């Protein structure tokens, strides 16, 4: 009994239970709409885990949303709701693309340059939100929503500009190959590489068929850094103090305005990093005209909340979400269930995550009953 209670009280337990409930309800939805849930989930898991390259693709898919989720989670822990991650991602991608196209240094310089430029752009975009909040008290959600759209049009403006527009496409020129952050980007397509790889099937599949890149490692590193920053550093202490009780923090001599701006700068930089890693790490290494949001930031929002805004949790939630997005297409391909069903399924899972608080409450009730029986 005690053990059950203890396990139930852990946040991870409730998240897992929520996800299972999400799947259960999704199964019902599938069944009601005439699709075999077993086969659907089979297709889903096969689409995620069926082949090494699928796993690789899931990880690649998870990379940007893990990073944007970190951005959202970080801001949330500091008391800000970063719904502007989408826009920060867009300007980050735009800037990384432009810098990666205009500059062409050796990779040791080029890669950091491109990645950092994306981060700086994202940071600036987030910083505007932070500044307006700190200086004028303007709600971050409002400015973020506006800035998302401004970012979208700004990015389109850049793509359409005569300097960056690649003729006969809807895209900008891609970044120079020296910016690539894939694993062995040149070698794997060289003759020697292909010759070597053809003898190693697994390696070949993963390396050649997918854009295996360093992005996810960067995401993991970022998650650890964010965790360290938040919970182990004095700066993070300050940030959290401001987030949790602005008045007390101010009274204790901590600058509120500075920390709000800083929070949004960091959050923006994380979203920008997500974009940089996508631009440098995956095809087509460029931005193109956006006719709608690509949801890199909005998905990050879902991921962050599935993770309960825990930085380390974002890694796993990112993988889960990436898996659902990528593997979900297999449900459509194999079972024929339209993509709407998959969106409903993902939405259902997220919805149940919202209900996670019920589990520890249940645990307390169990505990109470146990205690009174013992008495």
């Amino acid at each position, binding site marked *: 009994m005690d053990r059950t209670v203890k396990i139930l009280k852990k946040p991870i337990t409730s998240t897992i239970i929520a996800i299972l409930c999400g799947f259960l309800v999704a199964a019902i939805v599938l069944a009601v*709409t005439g699709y075999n849930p077993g086969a659907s989930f089979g297709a889903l898991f096969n689409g995620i885990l069926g082949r090494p390259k699928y796993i690789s693709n899931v990880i690649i898919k998870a990379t940007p949303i893990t990073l944007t989720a970190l951005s959202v989670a970080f801001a949330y822990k500091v008391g800000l*709701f970063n*719904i502007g991650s989408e826009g920060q991602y867009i300007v980050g991608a735009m800037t990384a693309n432009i810098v990666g196209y205009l500059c062409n240094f050796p990779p040791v310089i080029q890669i950091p340059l491109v990645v950092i430029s994306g981060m700086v752009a994202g940071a600036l975009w987030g910083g505007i939100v932070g500044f*307006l909040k700190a200086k*004028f*008290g*303007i*709600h971050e*959600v*409002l*400015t973020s*929503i*506006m*800035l998302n*759209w*401004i970012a979208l*049009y*700004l990015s*389109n*403006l850049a793509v*359409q500009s005569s300097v960056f527009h690649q003729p006969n496409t809807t895209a900008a020129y891609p970044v120079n190959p020296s910016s690539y952050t894939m694993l062995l980007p040149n070698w794997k397509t060289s003759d020697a590489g292909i010759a070597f790889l053809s003898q190693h099937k697994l390696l070949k599949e993963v390396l050649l068929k997918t854009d295996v890149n360093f992005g996810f490692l960067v995401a993991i590193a970022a998650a650890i850094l964010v965790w360290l920053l938040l919970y182990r550093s004095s700066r993070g202490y300050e940030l959290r103090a401001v987030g949790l009780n602005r008045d007390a923090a101010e009274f204790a001599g901590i600058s509120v305005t500075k920390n709000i701006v800083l929070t949004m700068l960091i959050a923006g930089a994380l979203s920008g990093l997500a974009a940089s890693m996508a631009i440098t790490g995956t095809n087509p290494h460029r931005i193109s005209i956006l006719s*709608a*949001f690509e949801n890199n930031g909005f998905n990050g*929002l*879902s991921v962050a*909340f*599935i993770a309960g805004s825990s930085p380390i949790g974002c890694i796993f939630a990112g993988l889960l979400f990436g898996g659902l997005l990528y593997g979900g297409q297999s449900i459509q391909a194999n079972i024929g269930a*339209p993509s*709407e*069903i*998959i*969106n*409903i399924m*993902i*939405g*259902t899972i*997220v*919805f149940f*995550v*919202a*209900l*996670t*608080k*019920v589990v520890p409450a249940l645990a307390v009730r169990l505990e109470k009953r146990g205690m009174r029986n013992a008495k």
Partner: protein
Amino acid sequence: MLNNISLLVGITLMYSAPLIFGALAGVISERSGVVNLGIEGMMTVGAFVGAAVGYFSGNAWIGFLAAGIAGAAFALLHAIAAVTFKADQTISGIALNLIGPGLALFLCRLCFSGATMSQPVPHKLPKILGDAQENTVAQNLNLDITVVLALATMLIMWFVLYRTKWGLRIRSVGEHPAAADTLGISVDRTRYICVLVSGMLAGLGGASMTLAVIQQFTPTAISGHGFIALAAVIFGKWTPQGAYGACLLFGFAEALSVFLGLKNVPIPTEVLAMLPYILSIVVLVLFVGRSVAPKADGLPYEKGTR
């Protein structure tokens, strides 16, 4: 001149009507202390149901009504999560935004033999001056009835919130639920009702898109309106009249950008498209400033915690 002014007014009102319903949906929910991030999803459901029922019944009014009911029914999910289960309202709203459009498209396929776009309704909601007008100014001002309904809804909501006992109770629940609770006001019931009304209004907003602005449901009929509505709620400081004004401002900025586009001003269209969003921020910084949410907004109410 008169032509231009009437054009700007007409476009402003046309553009803002669905947003106003969405924003009022946000106001009523958040005033009772439930953050509603799911307006977008609720609007999409309303947009579909409005168009579908309008098509099958042949009567746009029935469709409009049905959209309100459907929006409320969908909002019930949010209410259950936010009120009964004390869930994180933000995630619950996000979930609705994922489920809503999925559900609408899926139902659309079921009702319209696999298409994700409904058939056009035979008759749209009426216009205030009836059929097309010869006179350009009159035509520009021949507004959708939804424009009038949006105004009326705002006025009614204002009246209810500030002049009736229910309004007093709703506001108290959003500001200090424990206080309301000690006075025998059921926090949960109040919030349930407000969230359902919120869903209903969002549904009507969606339907005013698909039954007045256009005449059918399309997968992109609602694309971002819910979020702009959310911004308008904050912009308008959580008051019906403020949110209404914010939507008008936004609609006006859109009208202005269209107008400038028509006059061939030498500004890239991308920049013109940004105009409404930039203008909103500028107006906010210059004239509106700090807005403070209802104190208990977003906080689940649990008896005995403080």
